[in-house]
């Protein structure tokens, strides 16, 4: 590599001075220390046959889940536009960063999510129907309608509860890793966050605690370039996220986050190091948020569409699709059947979810605040029931005279 030239992994040098969120050209020094690791190129070709460490059946299954997540995101945005759900936050373009990490972990490893990792929750066994009930906040919701859409929890799959405040899950994941070590468990937590979260105090605290205590944990930064309307370079003046690992005294790796194989391999390495007592890893997955932050914003208001175009060529699903075809694991008919199967799965789950009672029972309002409701909770429930009996509008969204 010519050390005098900036390293431009995607051939599109970013311009930090213009708030450009595309992968920035990094200096030769950093490119050498934190190369952007890629195993599957944008055309879906293996850079090294040895990099294909995912068993065929699992590769196909992970790709099916990528397709499921993509279709789910697209369908749910439509549902939100139709007014059937209030909010949605998806992961279009980031499926490899999410599924490549989650699928590379062991079933006993806890996942501390940010709020885009629905694919990881489903991978861990959260029934699609239950996830959809959560979007409706209806009686089928696993969190009893207590959170806005896309804040799922699934304890049976060790998928921890989602918080809207950013980065709070980082020190929590460190604590879980400490606990597992105390108990002698082979458990390595995987914790997700975005590039915006690297500005938060809990990012610093989490990484610092983990490195000082040398706990087994994997910090996955989905560097998707954007924190709502703010580009990555408005969050940090570091050329990469991965280099921050140096200051904390831990491993750092930087991978093409749209490359399922690179993400998978980096996660496997990080887990092996952690499980062997080698401490934490900061894994930067360089990816791109193809849509708005959520259904509540329109990205056209703050970023030029030209910036999005190059990333369409880097689509994480397309690369794996080409690999599957090249390896004979998928043909046109099989792919069509798979896509139709996913569509039908979503449709059927949606039908079941929409059939659930529209609200959880009113007494659930007072449950789970504590292990047992307090006396005042019982009084407040009685008062609420009386109010509802006296005037049904108490439970209705509209109460003014129309």
């Amino acid at each position, binding site marked *: 590599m010519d050390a005098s030239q900036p390293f431009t992994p995607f051939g599109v040098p970013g311009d930090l001075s213009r708030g450009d969120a595309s992968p920035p050209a990094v200096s030769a020094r950093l490119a050498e220390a934190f190369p952007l690791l890629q195993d599957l190129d944008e055309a879906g070709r293996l850079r090294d046959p040895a990099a294909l460490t995912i068993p065929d059946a699992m590769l196909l299954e992970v790709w099916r889940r990528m397709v499921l997540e993509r279709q789910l995101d697209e369908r749910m945005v439509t549902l939100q536009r139709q007014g059937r759900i209030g909010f949605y936050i998806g992961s279009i373009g980031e499926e490899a960063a999410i599924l490549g990490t989650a699928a590379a972990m062991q079933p006993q490893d806890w996942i501390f999510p940010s709020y885009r990792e629905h694919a990881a929750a489903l991978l861990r066994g959260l029934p699609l129907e239950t996830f959809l009930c959560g979007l409706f906040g209806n009686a089928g919701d696993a*969190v009893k309608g*207590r959170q806005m859409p896309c804040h799922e929890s699934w304890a049976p799959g060790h998928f921890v509860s989602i918080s809207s405040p950013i980065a709070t899950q*980082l020190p*929590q994941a460190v604590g879980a890793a400490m606990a597992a070590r105390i*108990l002698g468990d082979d458990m390595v937590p995987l914790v997700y966050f975005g590039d915006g979260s690297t500005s938060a*105090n809990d990012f610093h605290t989490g990484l610092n605690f983990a490195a000082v205590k040398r706990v087994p944990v994997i910090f996955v930064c989905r560097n998707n370039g954007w924190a709502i309307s703010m580009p990555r370079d408005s969050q940090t003046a570091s050329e990469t996220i991965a280099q921050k690992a140096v200051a904390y005294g831990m491993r750092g790796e930087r991978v093409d986050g749209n490359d399922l194989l690179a993400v998978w391999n980096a996660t496997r390495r990080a887990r092996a190091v952690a499980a062997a007592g080698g401490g934490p890893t900061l894994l930067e997955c360089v990816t791109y948020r193809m849509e708005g932050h959520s259904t509540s914003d329109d990205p056209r208001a703050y970023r030029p569409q030209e910036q999005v175009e190059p990333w369409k060529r880097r689509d994480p699903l397309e690369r794996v699709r080409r690999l599957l075809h090249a390896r004979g694991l998928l043909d046109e008919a099989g792919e069509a059947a798979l896509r139709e199967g996913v569509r039908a799965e979503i449709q059927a789950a949606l039908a079941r979810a929409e059939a659930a009672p529209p609200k959880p029972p009113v007494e659930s309002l007072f449950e789970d605040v*504590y292990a047992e409701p307090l006396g005042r909770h019982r009084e407040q429930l009685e008062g609420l029931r009386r109010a509802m009996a006296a005037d049904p509008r108490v439970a209705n969204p509209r109460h003014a005279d129309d």
Partner: protein
Amino acid sequence: MNVIQAVNDALRQEMRRDPRVVVLGEDVGAFGGVFRATAGLQAEFGEERVFDTPLAEGGIIGAAVGMALYGLRPVPEIQFADFIFPAFDQIVNEVAKMRYRSGGQYPCPLVIRTPYGGGIKGGHYHSQSPEALFIHAAGLKVVCPSNPRDAKGLLTAAIRDPDPVLFLEPKRVYRAAKGEVPEGEFFLPLGEAAVTRPGGQVTVVAWGAMWHEADQAAREAAAEGIDCEVIDLRSLQPLDLDTVVASVKKTGRCVVVHEAPLTCGFGAELAALVQERCFTSLEAPVTRVTGFDTPFPYALENEYLPRAPRILEALRQTMAY
């Protein structure tokens, strides 16, 4: 035994009983804590169960959350209650809401121990009483003992409780408050107030360090012929309202004492509850004797604190109403 020794005793008892109990915080390890509350614990239980953390309260509580979710019973120490605010988000948005927001899937049982309160020449950042801020965050239990016996019994209960508990330790009387403490396992249920002085004319409600001031005021008032019933709340959330209501229905008068600022202090909640439940029994308005609506001062801390003379004057005025 004093309050610090009682806290240490409870921690040791619970760590011996339950291997899931772990202690973490700043200087809590080999040094045994700046107030010596964790002295000797690391020597007995090792560096994995009793450990120092980097200086970041949000990290201490955040890590404790992860440990609690995973099945341990962490007892993090915040060195002074004044330093708890970097962890406010973790406590209010994470600890308190974890069970609720996960639909009961992720309980978060932990005990945050922290010395609180003024009267030790600590100025603004070693003196505050933030109990009301945390009582307001549904999902937390808030406990505040006044004496060694209660400290041991309530801390034991807090560690065994299925819910997260903020355990406020009255540092003003850490060493000054001495008393008999039962040996071995000793448990006092949360949510039970203690009537520490029976009386018939006026109810005085206090907790923590200010209970001692309330008790002194009641003794001085007795010399003036005012017969006070003193209640040590011990647990602020859950609140033993029945004991307070029964007392005020008997006495017809109520004085609430706390060292936190007046406005939106827990005394406001108590005054509201007492007037709701005891309206027809009241002979005088519910009176609050509290800190002022200022930051906690250094030079004027005696004037700031609701000590016995101010409480005594409030008792006189309540009786004369």
